[in-house]
């Protein structure tokens, strides 16, 4: 019986979205996505209230919102510590190193064939195993978090970049040969631009990896701030709304990070068929 209102809201939202989705314009697309998200929140709130779920198990969205509003200062400093210092720095260093490595081994198929399988192997190492080791090596502040992120993002970006550098069409390479282009010119004017769609694929995948890595690494030692630190201590204090507020920050930051990279991708690879405005 108590499930009736939940089901009613659910069905109502589905109906609304089905109707809206028929218009398929920019605005309705956004609206549909937002309605979907809002529905989930409402259902969550209703379920928590109707079934009297204890807040130490699952707080209601309203409680999370209140905690978010009450703790903005803490959330901000955690955000700076973990995402700006840890994740972003690590991601930039990792991406830079991966791109440089890809270009460095570009001329040596031998190295590529040797490095890539091993790279895939290393990428399969679970971070929970690497994190304590890196915390031991690089200290407990954000440097070790950045190091974890570097390790996590390096190989996915490397693999994509190497594939991208090889992704030119034979005809495009032949053209370069007919102009007797030296290595540098064909790298700079052909292969790097052609590699961009692949590179951005790697960059996008690794945005969420970077966040997760930085947060989890904090479980293995950290200063007294940071999102991972806050989550683990707040769980210990049963301050679940704060935990979820941190998760919310992570989700927003992650989506923004992804969105920004996707936006840059759009600017850089405007020419790629997947980015061009549809003709006809």
């Amino acid at each position, binding site marked *: 019986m108590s499930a009736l209102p939940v089901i009613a809201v659910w069905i109502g939202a589905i109906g609304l*979205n089905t109707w*809206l*989705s*028929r218009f*398929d314009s920019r605005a*309705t*697309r956004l609206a*549909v*996505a937002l*309605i*979907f*998200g809002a529905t*989930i929140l409402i259902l969550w709130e209703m379920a928590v209230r109707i079934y009297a779920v204890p807040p130490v*198990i*699952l707080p209601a969205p309203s409680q999370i919102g209140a905690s978010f509003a009450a703790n903005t200062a803490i959330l901000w400093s955690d955000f700076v510590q973990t995402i700006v210092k840890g994740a972003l720095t690590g991601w930039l260093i990792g991406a830079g190193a991966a791109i440089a490595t890809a270009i460095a081994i570009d001329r040596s198929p*031998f*190295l*590529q*064939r*040797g*490095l890539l*399988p*091993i790279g*895939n*192997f*290393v*990428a*399969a*190492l*679970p*971070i*929970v*195993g690497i994190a*304590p*080791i890196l915390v*031991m*090596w690089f200290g407990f502040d954000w440097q070790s978090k950045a190091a974890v992120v570097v390790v996590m993002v390096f190989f996915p970006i490397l693999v994509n970049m190497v594939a991208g550098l090889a992704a030119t069409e034979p005809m495009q390479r*032949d053209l370069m040969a007919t102009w007797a282009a030296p290595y540098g010119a064909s790298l700079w004017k052909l292969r790097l631009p052609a590699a961009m769609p692949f590179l951005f694929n790697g960059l996008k995948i690794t945005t*969420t990896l970077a*966040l*997760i890595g930085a*947060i*989890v690494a904090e*479980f*293995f030692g950290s200063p007294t701030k940071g*999102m*991972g630190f806050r*989550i*683990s201590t707040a*769980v210990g204090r049963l301050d*679940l709304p704060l*935990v979820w507020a941190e*998760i919310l920050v*992570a*989700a927003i*930051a*992650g*989506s923004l*990070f*992804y969105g920004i990279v996707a936006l840059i991708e759009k600017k850089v690879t405007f020419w790629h068929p997947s980015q061009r405005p549809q003709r006809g």
Partner: protein
Amino acid sequence: MTEATASPGSTVLGRGLGRALPILTVLLAIIAIWYLAAIWMNATWVRDQAVRADTVLTTGDLIRQTLTLERPVLPAPHQVAAGLWEGIAGQKITSKRSLVWHGWVTLSATLAGFAIGTAAGVLLAVGIVHNRAMDQSVMPWAVASQTVPILAIAPMVIVVFASMGVTGLLPKAMIAAWLSFFPVLVGMVKGLRTPDAMQLDLMHSWNASRVQQFWRLRLPSSLPYLFASLKVAIAAALVGTIVGELPAGATSGLGARLLSGSYYGQTVQIWAALFAAAILAAVLVMLIGALERLTLRRMGLAR
């Protein structure tokens, strides 16, 4: 220009060697660097100990000691290899110290999570491709779902499941599923959308129903994409399981092994468990690769 042409007289053996040689070379280089790093990183400790014990070290002593520490900062490759060997072959596989036993515990949850994640990913993808409302609602939030630091809240997830009476393998598997459904979803949506306009038009001109279109066109076309995603997904499922094992009472599984090594500063145990996990991941990915080749060859998609 000549990349594609195999040199004449190349044998299977020669080709195998041609593939293994670069890997071996890089591997050797890594091991050499690793040894140097081990000496360098462990030296501080060895020197401090010498000072504390008031002894003088020769370079030979220093190097020997850095490579044989019981609690090294970085264990030497042979120490890790010995730890792995000890864990895999040195125990009865039912022993709690056996990596095979822990590996099996992890594997079973991984496979369960992988199965759940794959099923969820495929079903969502089918829905998304066939229903515009679902496409517009689910897809943006699927991306957002992956930004939730599931690894950080895994302990809570376990507790929440426990409060609902779900314990044992399933909570771990759910975390694994959460991580693995996303690549499957993305790959499958892409795959189901690969048939080009002409192929869809052909189906249309034959007045094929949606179900016929799905089974005879969309699904077969999506398989290459599906397999590519499955490889990512199974590795993700393994990571999810290991993370889920840490708080699941930390009793067994490679994750528990990793963490308990960490509590007691047993670096060699950590590294052995780490490598066991990576090897397991590599084997799983290879298995899917083999399955992929088999299927695609039978379908005539791999030449």
